[in-house]
């Protein structure tokens, strides 16, 4: 892991390879994440999307290649995981859950500071959950839980937010709340969204990264069926609903 003060991008990934067992899941990936970028990461199941996020977060260590962070970015990456990755029935209050985003390798033996509690209150306000702060997360709906996870990822004041399938387990109303919140956050910080539903984000995103072991990077308006077919390994249909690049995979 390198740290460079004069880096142009927040994160620069070069020739990254990683896999489980002996099989590479992601191979020779290079990707730049710029300040205030908004990247959609799409691709088929098993294409390595979540794996790439975990590599960026340092949960997994790459076989090969480098991930360089701009000064002070490493460890200050917000992460909103899928619901299935944590203990959803853990008895904890909304505010304690959000507060736990402040915990790091350096401060886990200390008590929460007043400043950390203040930031947590602010973030719960931001995701509109202040009235639920003393409730248990067990009693929350999918949309509310999603917002707690976002609050948790924001309390450490990250410069970049990684979200893994944020629209997967929430209803359509919660989805539009989420999209508005992400747009608002994107004024300040970079956002990377792993999704199977790029349609939802089609108005907001700046770059589209398609991952199926290898990575294909596109700006807006550079995507065609041939490229997608290459990524998904099957014919893919592009449908325009007045929004560019709405993608539906044919089964």
């Amino acid at each position, binding site marked *: 892991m390198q740290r460079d003060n004069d880096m142009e991008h927040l994160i620069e990934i070069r020739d990254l390879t990683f896999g489980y067992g002996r099989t590479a899941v992601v191979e020779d990936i290079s990707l730049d994440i710029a300040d205030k970028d908004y990247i959609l990461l799409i691709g088929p199941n098993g294409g390595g999307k979540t794996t790439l996020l*975990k590599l960026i977060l340092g949960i997994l260590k790459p076989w090969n290649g480098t991930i360089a962070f701009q000064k002070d970015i490493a460890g200050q990456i917000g992460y909103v*995981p899928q619901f299935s990755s*944590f203990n959803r029935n853990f*008895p904890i209050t909304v505010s304690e*859950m959000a507060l736990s985003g402040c915990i790091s390798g350096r401060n886990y033996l200390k008590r929460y500071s007043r400043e950390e509690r203040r930031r947590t209150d602010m973030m719960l306000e931001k995701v509109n959950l202040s009235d639920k702060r003393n409730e*248990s997360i067990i009693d929350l709906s999918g949309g509310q839980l999603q917002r707690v996870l976002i609050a948790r990822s924001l309390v450490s004041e990250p410069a970049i937010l990684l979200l893994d399938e944020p629209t997967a387990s929430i209803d359509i109303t919660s989805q539009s709340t989420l999209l508005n919140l992400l747009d608002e956050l994107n004024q300040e910080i970079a956002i990377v969204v792993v999704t199977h539903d790029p349609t939802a984000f089609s108005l907001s995103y700046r770059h589209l990264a398609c991952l199926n072991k290898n990575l294909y990077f596109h700006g807006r308006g550079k995507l065609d069926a041939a490229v997608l077919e290459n990524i998904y390994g099957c014919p893919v249909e592009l449908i325009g609903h007045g929004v560019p690049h709405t993608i539906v995979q044919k089964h």
Partner: protein
Amino acid sequence: MQSILSYEFMQNALMAGIMASIVCGVIGPFIVTKRMVFISGGLTHAAFGGLGIAYWLGIRPLYGATVFVLCIAAILSRLEGRTDKNDLFVGILWAVGVAIGIIFIHMTPGYAPDLMTFLFGNILTVPRSDIVIMLILTLAVVVPIVTCYKGFVSIALDEEYARARQLPVNALNTGLMMLVALAVVTLIQVVGIILVIALLTIPVAIAGELSLIFRRIMLLSILCGIMICLTGLSLSYSLEVPSGASIIITGAVFLGSVKSIKYFFFRRRSTATGEMHP
């Protein structure tokens, strides 16, 4: 009640019960939320192996069990996360632990009455000297949990996130496993190997019916544990039934009553500890 308390063995039993309840209340919620009940069972039975070896060597059985279980816990936590065969390994450990215990007891000349105490538990025979060791073990469990509370909650709630936040997740997991091992050894004194699991789970189950907040579940587990131990002890005294079994049955009845009262009067679904995953 005063007459009961005038006996030294009763005072010892009370102190042992209270300490056991504190240990259970502090470590139990982690065992239940982290789904380590089966592993705790394996460690408990592995402890029997340690007891047997200690008996054969002629050292104090509690020391033998402590060292043996700590070693097993260290090995287990190294295996965890690295293989999905953990479940299988714990099952084997369960059986082999008991087998080792039996072989070593068999090899030791003479009858081993103390080991029956360890198997079925008899809180009424806990000597003063063991109370001191129990106090040390209790502190050895409670102090790390309190100082490292945030870290342990993090790995029980969302291990992956803890890794992303650069917490020493492997060390915390090993630490928790060691603490479970110490807790098990402490509890063996009170209710015996067979009933340790019950004392680690029943108070937490009751507390889980009463609260959905981890800190409160801990506190309530301690209180429930003390209540169960005291009630169980008095019943064992007045009805002249074995104390360990009496404590557990009391706990089960208590849990049953709380669940039924909740069901009939509040109609709330059971949550925190009942079904951990949706």
